[in-house]
């Protein structure tokens, strides 16, 4: 089975080094299949944290982090061993956050990091708000944790592994799975029509 050219692709994949938070001009150049080494500050949030962030938005209370340019990493890390900033920290499946994501993009979130498919609503929101969905390798939590330089809980401590953390990452390896032009990297299964 040959490696498929990304849908809507035809472009040669490129590699970028980017700094989070992301700017519009960072995102607009990215196409599906491009590799990104991301450095800077990103925020962790998964199921329960997303629910709380949306509740905070609705009640007008303070948000755990500034949304403008933000990169959200869907991860619930394992506890940190002594002398390390974090335990294993690979991506969790993204579709569970789909109902929250378009709203967050409309408020300035520039990228999310996870694994697996997104809904059409999310893909439309990426196009509408010039944002991007990155994939990281699922189940490679020990390996990915090596690119995380520091971690601190900044909100929802009571959620345990689901608390919101501010991470400083260096050269965190990502793939552009959905870009701001409606492209998607995932292979379409060969099923008989």
């Amino acid at each position, binding site marked *: 089975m040959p490696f498929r050219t990304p849908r809507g692709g035809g472009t040669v994949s490129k590699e970028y080094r980017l700094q989070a938070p992301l700017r519009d001009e960072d995102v607009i150049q990215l196409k599906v299949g491009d590799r990104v080494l991301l450095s800077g500050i990103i925020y962790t949030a998964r199921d329960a944290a997303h629910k709380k962030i949306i509740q905070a938005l609705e009640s007008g209370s303070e948000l755990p982090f500034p949304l403008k340019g933000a990169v959200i990493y869907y991860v619930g890390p394992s506890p940190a061993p002594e002398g390390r900033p974090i335990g294993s920290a690979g991506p969790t*499946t993204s579709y569970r956050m789909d109902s929250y994501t378009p709203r967050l993009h409309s408020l300035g979130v520039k990228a999310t990091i996870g694994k697996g498919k997104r809904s059409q609503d999310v893909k439309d929101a990426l196009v509408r708000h010039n944002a991007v969905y990155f994939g990281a390798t699922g189940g490679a939590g020990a390996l990915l944790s090596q690119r995380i330089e520091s971690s601190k809980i900044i909100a929802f401590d009571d959620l*345990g592994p689901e608390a919101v953390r501010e991470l400083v990452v260096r050269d965190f390896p990502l793939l552009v799975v959905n870009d701001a032009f409606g492209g998607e990297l995932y292979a379409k299964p060969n099923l008989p029509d």
Partner: protein
Amino acid sequence: MRTVTSSDIADRVAEMVVRANRFLPPDVLTAISRAKGNESSPSGKEILGQLEENAALARESGLPLCQDTGMAVFFVELGEQCRVEGASLREAITQGMVRGYQDGLLRKSMCHPLTRKNTGDNTPAVIHVDLVEGDGLKISFMAKGGGSENMSRVTMLSPAQGWKGIKEFVINRVAEAGPNPCPPTMLGIGIGGSFELAPKLAKQALLRPLDQPHPDQEIARMEQELLDEINSLGIGPMGLGGDTTCLGVRINMAPCHIASLPLAVNVQCHSARHEEVEL
């Protein structure tokens, strides 16, 4: 009658859950390496290489292989001539699990289904006990991750659908799940039994190593047929395209009611962490 103390059980379980979360079973590692050699997609090859690297790093650093250290699932075979002394068998396994998840820095992932409040110590463990002949005690453990578990399905086919219907359901499930369960996956398939037995058969099937086809040649042939068809879907590692969508299919079968054909598909990610101890 043979006696086993509950503190022995707890100690062995505590060690086992930590080990299982750090060391990928050799059959899985071998299957990943072999798949890497045969993979024609460059991105697929690269990802399989990352999984090898991740396993080596976990082994050396003591970090768990994956941040999702799973719900703790135990299959216990308790001999009728074996007696547990001290706490109950269930309590002993739970105590060992809690200690292992705490001391091994494993993530606690269990929560109330509606309030979503974390139970804080990964309890309750899911424990299946079967009484068997003799005086042995065998405990198998699986760290079952949520991402792959969510992609699992159970269905009640009608008997007329037969093998063709089974194949169709399994293939469609894998195609629909796509990149979500962290392919390459393994599939545990339960065919027959009842509504509640089929998923148990499916999950137990995942304990059989990848280098051990089913002892019944006909079932072994069905496992291979499903594996070949799944891999021709082209989903590939992490869903990015390629030859390696699944590393192995494991089928367990049991007789069922004349009106029924229960079928369960338990999806397991490449981080197929399981171990067993005998006391």
